């Protein structure tokens, strides 16, 4: 598992193994420690400055206070999203909607909200109550659009051809 982490650091781990590894990191401090130590060594070789010892500890505390961002995006040139997207016909366009929600104590299930429409139709963003589901990280079907609710939101709508 640690060797996989080393490969991840170099961007050489198979995409399908990343989620499992990240889950394992949450369980095993030695993996987080390794990530930290290896970057320390690497940065030192390139003569980046030292930071105070509590830098990450302080930052983690601040980040914990922040509302959790949930805004699944389509990133350009991303191989991850290529695997997730439904194959498109030439006439179809896809609108992606990003939402930011406040973290609550209950676990949120939020799916990427995607609408496939014909290209000569303009996507009209409606303003209903926002219901969102967290995309399951599992990629068993490779098609996260199957049987997901469609969510519309007021902001962040983008039509991509």
């Amino acid at each position, binding site marked *: 598992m640690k060797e996989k982490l080393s490969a991840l650091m170099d961007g050489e781990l198979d995409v399908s193994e990343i989620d499992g590894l990240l889950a394992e990191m949450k369980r095993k401090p030695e993996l*987080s420690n390794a990530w*930290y130590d290896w970057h320390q*060594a690497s940065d030192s070789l390139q003569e980046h400055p030292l930071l105070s*010892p509590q*830098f990450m500890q302080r930052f983690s505390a601040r*980040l914990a206070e922040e509302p959790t961002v949930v805004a699944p*995006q389509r990133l350009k040139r991303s191989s*991850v999203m290529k695997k997730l997207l439904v194959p498109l016909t030439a006439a179809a366009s896809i609108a992606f909607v990003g939402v930011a929600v406040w973290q609550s104590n209950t676990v949120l299930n939020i799916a990427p909200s995607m609408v496939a429409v014909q290209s000569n139709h303009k996507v009209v963003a409606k303003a209903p109550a926002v219901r969102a589901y967290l995309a399951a*990280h599992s990629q068993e079907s490779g098609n996260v659009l199957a049987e997901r609710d469609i969510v519309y939101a007021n902001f962040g709508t983008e039509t991509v051809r």
Partner: protein
Amino acid sequence: MIQRTDRDIDQELVVRAQAGDKRAFELLVVKYQRRVARLLSRLIRDQNEIEDVSQESFIKAYRALPSFRGESAFYTWLYRIAINTAKNHLSTLGRRPQLLADYEDEEGESLDAAAQIPDYHTPETELSNRQIVSTVNAVVDELPSELRTAITLREMEGLSYEDIAAVMNCPIGTVRSRIFRAREAIADKLRPLLDIVGRDKRW
């Protein structure tokens, strides 16, 4: 240095952070904390301020994640946020930055101009950093040659595993294993030193 494969791992972590995984974002912060601090040290002199503004920059980047769509590499987007955060910080204090330059280039090429400006290490961090650097170099020098070659080609030359395998005439799996073993050997020697100069509690 930032390599092509860095963009891939960054994208993978950014996608997950955008989907609600804060831990993925923290991994990016661990990766870029010192680079951002080094960048800001060209604008801000005081070490405490540098760290505060660095943290502020990462928080701002986290909040801005919904607007990041991968038009640029994550790190150039991050660096832009950091520089703007630093400028705002300085202007609220009524100060001008040490260097005013235009950091518009998408690929970060123009950021190299900042490399000409000396940054402001404190004597203490300078000494500790030199100790860490010399320790790391000493460990690398003592590694078996195949481990040393692999980690050097990866860390200093930024070669991909595939390229390293071609150079070393061995399978990619062997490259991966050698780099991993080299990192572990370095970390083992580094940990006692980090305990002395101070290290982050497990986060």
